């Protein structure tokens, strides 16, 4: 747009040679301004990605030269029980944690959307956990809260549920980790709320005239109109969930216990790479994660056509 406009005005005042010169200047300026990102992209993203792809086919311990071993890392991954366990733990977390978190986010967003006053306050209060939830501090607090005789145990005992400490119980650590992610529902909630505000009120009025109830309105108006935002949140939160690290590390003292129940994928990758110095193996794990996340993204985009509704207006 700028291009056509300037060229048009340029021809009126200056010789025709001005347009190409302007374009050349733009190219130079463009790459100059892009330089920091471009350097970072090449040196810190593309370069390392390619070298980790290479390393994934080698045996490398940081001290001796990498030794080419072909697909050995990848094949031994699938015979490694700890690896398979970490896949199971992570998938469980993603499959249960993410939908729960988004359901909580959507429910609270729908509630807050009714607010006539005080919405700003509520929105901020619900958002606060998202800002601190992934920190080491909260992991420590979570561990104390869900420990034996901790407030959660105490609270449940009051209702006659005696689970003991969740932290030391391999079958309760996953619910505990899922609660930690659901607790951070504020970030997707804020995005949902912004999406709800963009739905034209006339649609609801028209539906009321047609006699639609609350449920019908949600199914036929709210959800379709909100679906791009649902899609965005689902994609980002899923990818994000695969990468949980700090909380798992702190809660399990960096070991993924008890009984491997918090051995998340990235934690195992870290242990393999930086405790055992099996960097080739860890690189294979990293690439497998990239492939899985890539495939999931692709599946999301493919299936989105059937349920994500993009309205005609571009803004």
């Amino acid at each position, binding site marked *: 747009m*700028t291009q056509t406009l300037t060229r048009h005005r340029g021809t009126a005042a200056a010789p025709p040679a001005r347009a190409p010169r302007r374009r050349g200047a733009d190219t130079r300026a463009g790459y100059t301004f892009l330089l920091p990102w471009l350097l970072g992209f090449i040196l810190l993203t593309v370069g390392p990605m390619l070298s980790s792809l290479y390393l994934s086919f080698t045996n490398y311990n940081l001290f001796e030269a990498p030794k080419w071993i072909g697909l050995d890392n990848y094949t031994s991954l699938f015979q490694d029980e700890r690896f398979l366990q970490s896949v199971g733990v992570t998938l469980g977390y993603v499959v249960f944690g993410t939908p729960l978190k988004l359901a909580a986010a959507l429910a609270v967003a729908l509630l807050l959307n009714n607010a006539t006053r005080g919405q700003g306050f509520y929105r901020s209060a619900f958002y606060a956990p998202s800002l601190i939830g992934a920190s080491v501090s909260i992991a420590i607090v979570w561990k104390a809260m869900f*420990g034996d005789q901790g407030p959660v145990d105490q609270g449940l005992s009051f209702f006659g549920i005696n689970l003991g400490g969740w932290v030391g119980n391999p079958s309760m650590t996953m619910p505990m980790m899922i609660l930690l992610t659901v607790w951070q529902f504020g970030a997707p909630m804020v995005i949902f709320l912004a999406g709800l505000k963009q739905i034209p009120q006339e649609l609801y009025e028209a539906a009321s005239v047609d006699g639609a109830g609350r449920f019908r309105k949600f199914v036929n108006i709210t959800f379709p109109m909100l679906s791009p935002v649902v899609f965005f949140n689902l994609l980002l939160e899923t990818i994000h969930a695969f990468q949980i690290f700090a909380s798992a590390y702190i809660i399990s003292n960096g070991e993924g216990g008890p009984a491997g129940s918090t051995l998340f994928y990235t934690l195992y990758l870290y242990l393999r790479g930086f405790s055992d110095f099996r960097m080739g193996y860890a690189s294979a794990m990293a690439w497998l994660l990239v492939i899985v996340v890539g495939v999931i993204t692709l599946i999301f985009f493919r299936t989105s056509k059937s349920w994500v509704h993009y309205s005609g207006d571009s803004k």
Partner: protein
Amino acid sequence: MTTLSPPTQVRPSAATEYNPKADSRAAKRTRSIVFHALSLALIAVVLYPALWMVSSAFKPSSEIIGNSSIWSSNFSLDNFVTAMGGIGGVSTAQFFANSVVLALGSVIGTVLSATVSAYAFARIKFPGRSIFFGMMIATLLLPFHVVIIPQYIIFQQLGLVDTYIPLLIGKFLAADAFFVFLMVQFMRNLPRELDEAAIIDGAGHARIFCSIMLPLMKPALISSSIFAFIWSWNDFLGPLLYLNSPEKYPLPLALRLFVDQTQSSDYGAMIAMSVLALLPVLVFFLIFQRYIVEGVSTQGLKG
């Protein structure tokens, strides 16, 4: 309901019956009360862990476990005194200072590099722009674990392990696409007529960027700074990978060390230190909550 139709005109003096909306107003009131009660109850649940954390920091360790109440009659500052004493021969003030250095470095690097790069994406037309823009978006979704091993190897060979350089260089090279994306979205909403007028006046891109864009970018600059600060402040994996000497540790690593060494025996001091570590984030949030929440919602909407 009965007051709805003709009576309104027949008896205008009777105030309660006069107003056809009286009924719905009462309903609105109840709805509003229910709404606030429900929201407050939910907030109480959601904020309980935070309240429990703050109150536990003031309790003696013996009262933290086996006690779910927020209140205690033995509140004291003892835990904070222990926590401020530091760990491994390094004072907590030093950890704080380290965190501040890292966070400020991150803010400066991120804001500088992301605005400049975003200007190229949003306002300059050049061959390759859309390809690079697509790649930038793709890195938003890329699990960064795929680059940590080679990056570590590179920094190790350059002798930069146990310095802050590996933790900060990415910020100065706009490695976090989130910020570039945020700025691009913001710039695209600024009127193009401004640039066009400036171009006619003979201004180059450097001029347009400095004199027109930057002043208008203030809200985006502020929310990016806040996020860069908080994320750096809470970052754990980066420092865990690159820092070995405790005197260089930022707070999250210091906390881990503290947990390792006290082995959960002194819950009170542990939680007090957690509170101290979160304090700047909470203060930032209280001051800048508008910017933070707005930043999150615009980022999501224009995706």
